[in-house]
């Protein structure tokens, strides 16, 4: 069943993530959650009530020590546990980049497979809250650049459930990015406790014949609204869901049909996810393209505080629409 004909209970992204984590905690006693304020639900209350249900051995507060949070997660993962570590705002990954980049990412390889790394890191990213430069960053392309780390950033409740389950069950390190502006987004979620989505599988959320828009996180909703509003052009919307590895085939297949590609992602534009998607299509579907690929993102600034400034640098539905105009 594809994302197009998804059925199930209507749930929000937040409820879906909480349910997925609750089910995995119940299913496998090596799974545990840790993070700042995790016992009270963490930032944005994704894990609310889980401490009451499972106790401190399974859901625990950490000191404000991102390096130790991730580093001890790596050590626990290498020695038999399945940690889910919340670093709160993704900006804080900067503090714990060492155990992420040098340990979690490389240990399996350096030790020639002598250990597995069943570590999930949750990171809350994205702008739109006037939270200023150090609580609004989108860093998923930075993480996706690391060999040995898998990165996912689903936009829908369905994708959130399927990929959280897969991330927790995976024997590889997965960074799970949650955009803070989509926790309230609702959608149908398959009920099975074993519903999973493979890492590296994109979701076609709307079929269209004229333009392919690959959009992530909050911008999936913006792309879908553009697609619904436009009567002059038939837009296909794809949520890659996984950023690394990336589902090149699904995007390439779409571009073979449409001949036009727009990539919308909240990362800074230089060296971003946009560039990776565009390169793969240029490598594989150069002759399918009718026009140059268009990118929509943040024009290489940090995220400013003041509402008119933040609005200025953030990508919008309007800009996706303008990019669509440029390719048709």
């Amino acid at each position, binding site marked *: 069943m594809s994302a197009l004909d998804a059925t199930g209970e209507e749930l929000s992204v937040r409820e879906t993530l909480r349910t997925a984590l609750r089910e995995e905690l119940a299913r496998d006693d090596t799974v545990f959650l840790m993070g700042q304020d995790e016992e009270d639900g963490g930032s944005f209350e994704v894990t609310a009530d889980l401490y009451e249900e499972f106790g401190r051995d399974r859901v625990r507060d950490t*000191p404000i020590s991102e390096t130790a949070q991730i580093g001890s997660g790596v050590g626990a993962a290498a020695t038999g546990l399945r940690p889910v570590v919340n670093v709160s705002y993704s900006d804080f990954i900067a503090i714990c980049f060492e155990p992420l980049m040098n340990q979690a990412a490389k240990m399996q390889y350096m030790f020639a497979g002598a250990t597995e790394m069943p570590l999930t890191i949750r990171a809350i990213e994205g702008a739109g809250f006037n*939270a200023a430069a150090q609580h609004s960053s989108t860093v998923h392309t930075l993480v996706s650049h690391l060999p040995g780390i898998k990165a996912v950033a689903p936009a829908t409740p369905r994708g959130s459930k399927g990929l959280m389950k897969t991330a927790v069950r995976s024997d590889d390190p997965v960074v799970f990015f949650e955009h803070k502006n989509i926790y309230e987004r609702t959608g149908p979620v398959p009920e099975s406790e074993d519903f999973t989505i493979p890492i590296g599988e994109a979701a076609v959320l709307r079929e269209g014949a004229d333009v392919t828009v690959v959009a992530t996180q909050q911008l999936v909703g913006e792309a879908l609204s553009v697609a619904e509003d436009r009567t002059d052009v038939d837009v296909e919307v794809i949520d890659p869901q996984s950023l690394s590895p990336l589902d090149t085939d699904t995007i390439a297949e779409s571009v073979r049909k449409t001949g036009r590609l727009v990539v919308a992602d909240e990362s800074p534009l230089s060296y971003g996810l946009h560039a990776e998607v565009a390169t793969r299509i240029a490598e594989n579907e150069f002759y399918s393209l009718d026009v140059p690929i*268009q990118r929509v993102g943040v024009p290489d*600034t940090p995220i400013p*505080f003041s*509402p008119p400034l933040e*609005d200025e640098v953030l990508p919008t539905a309007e800009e996706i629409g303008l990019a669509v105009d440029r390719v048709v």
Partner: protein
Amino acid sequence: MATLNMTDPSDQRSALRRMLLIREFERAVRDNFADGEIPGFVHLYIGQEAVAVGACSALEDDDYVTSTHRGHGHCLAKGMDERTLMAELYGRRDGYCSGKGGSMHAADLDEGMLGAQPIVGAGVPLATGAGLTAQLRDREWVGLSFFGDGAFAEGQVHESINLAATWDLPAIYVVENNLYSEGMTYEKQHNVENLADSAAAYGIPGVIVDGMDVEDVYDAVAEARERAARGDGPTLIEAKTYRYRGHYEGDPQPYRTQEEIDEWRENRDAIDTFAARLREAGVLDEGDREEMQSAVEADIEAAVEYARDAPFPDPEEAYDDVFAEPNPDVEYFRERLGRTGGADP
């Protein structure tokens, strides 16, 4: 802001007034944030005023301080103007950071404020660096870092203090132990009773002060500043204090009781304690505090009016100051996105 002499009655009154100003500023932020006028996240300093005022009153104008996410008190105590600070919180062009920073990044290098700092612990190495500049360039200033008990669990805090201790840098580390790290109790974060005890690990003095007593804080920082200025290196000062509001405005605070908050407010309030002491000493006459309170209320009301009336920045100002020089990549992407040509605010 000028250094105060805490044995001078006039300066004692100034210290009280600064504490009242900070509290009134924070009350206005609380109310106007709740009303939706102030965007983003705010973290209030109410309860801890004695620490910022006591410490900054012992500093010289050229000294640098770094602050935290709970930074308004440090900004005002170091001499920043309440109107310009309020305008920054409102996201206005006339704010200290032209609206780019907001509450969590307020800064004014002219007043020696190297920045509020919402990455927990991240201000500590920056103040250390200000001390390094002083040492290498023979400057008279010291670097003082305010940080919380929560930050004491961060690696960069310990790395910085160790570095400063090893190099005898003119630095002062003021950890404001308000008993809560975000929504977590002290006991969940630390295994020592006193954070100042950790000073032994760096081979520097560790001093515990009553963070609800502005004079106690002042005395410790004045002594630490003398030590730093002599070239004898840093001091770690733990100020035992208490925040009256939640970690952030809107925090439901399941981690503590109203009774606990009331106990601190009613029996240990820094402003009440200091005002009573000044009255007993004859420094404050009957009605003086009320008069001072009315004056700071008028100042803060004027600050709010100033902020409300100040213009927002133009959207294209978002592209200024990414670098010292214009960045061709920013311009390239603006053009590609069709953002040049100036959208209306």
